[in-house]
């Protein structure tokens, strides 16, 4: 055995113009989450508990695209999803279409532990959340001003964005790759590849 180890991520693809203080904020959050995981592992918590603990922290902080601070649908609402998996017996749980569950990853864990299924979605998942008594909040809790701004830009550009940060000067100039990279489409809508996830 090589000892414990932990890795966290907050999304792939980053706005090349992300201001320095935002970068520092992100690094601080990542470091804080690492510390949370490290102390859990030092206290001999099992891996499954440690990953849930860390992702809950990331969901609660609005900086990244999950939980509070989630990207918005075309209707300006939030639909969240999550999944969790425990290696030894390959047990797993997943949820989609959540609109009121404060920590989706914990509901995914409950699907794994307390339901006969592996994946619950939309009204079924919301009903299961109520049965399990998990903390729920109004959908507005998850919506941030910054994301409302992002949605507006995405609608103006008629595109789907992979993440919630977008350069102030709009989509066209944020591309880093060759121009035609930006013309790739998904579901008939242009995708900006270098608009970060």
């Amino acid at each position, binding site marked *: 055995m090589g000892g*414990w180890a932990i890795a966290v991520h907050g999304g792939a693809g980053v706005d090349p113009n992300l201001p320095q203080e935002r970068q520092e904020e992100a690094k601080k959050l990542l470091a804080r989450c690492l510390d949370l995981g490290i102390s859990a592992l030092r206290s001999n918590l*099992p891996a499954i508990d440690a*990953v849930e603990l860390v992702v809950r922290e990331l969901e609660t902080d609005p900086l990244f695209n999950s939980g509070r601070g989630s990207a918005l649908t075309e209707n300006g609402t939030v639909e969240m999803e999550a999944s969790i998996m425990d290696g030894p017996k390959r047990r797993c749980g997943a949820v989609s279409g959540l609109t009121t569950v404060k920590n989706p990853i914990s509901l995914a864990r409950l699907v794994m532990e307390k339901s006969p299924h*592996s994946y619950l979605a939309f009204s079924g998942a919301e009903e299961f959340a109520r049965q399990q008594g998990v903390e729920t909040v109004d959908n507005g809790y998850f919506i941030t001003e910054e994301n409302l701004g992002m949605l507006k830009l995405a609608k103006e550009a008629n595109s789907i964005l992979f993440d919630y940060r977008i350069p102030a000067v709009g989509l066209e100039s944020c591309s880093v790759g060759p121009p035609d990279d930006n013309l790739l489409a998904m579901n008939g809508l242009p995708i900006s590849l270098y608009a970060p996830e």
Partner: protein
Amino acid sequence: TVGCVVVDSQGRCAAATSTGGLMNKMAGRIGDSPLIGAGTYACDLCGVSCTGEGEAIIRGTLARDVAAVMEYKGLSLQEAVDFVVNERLDEGRAGLIAVSRNGEVACRFNTNAMFRGFATEDGFTEVGIWD
């Protein structure tokens, strides 16, 4: 999208991924994060969490493929992660983090950057954004 992968002191691996998905997505759209084998996977060998273009990650079964090439091709964790990002994404853009039961950590992304952090029991710690 956010994610965490861990191997504990007993060598047990686990993975977790959570997201709001794509900005301006159609209502009802499901991405890779809740799909076991695409955005999240863990077994005896490793734990994997992915982020990026969900549709490409789904098509490439990215997270499970890391474990599969370790299992069937005998690749190390970093070799498996490199193989999957290089060979399974086609034109897709994504990144992933992974741990192995031997206490290794690995990461790879073909986007311009990825918010990420690592720590191992022997004292190695790193937080990064850019390539």
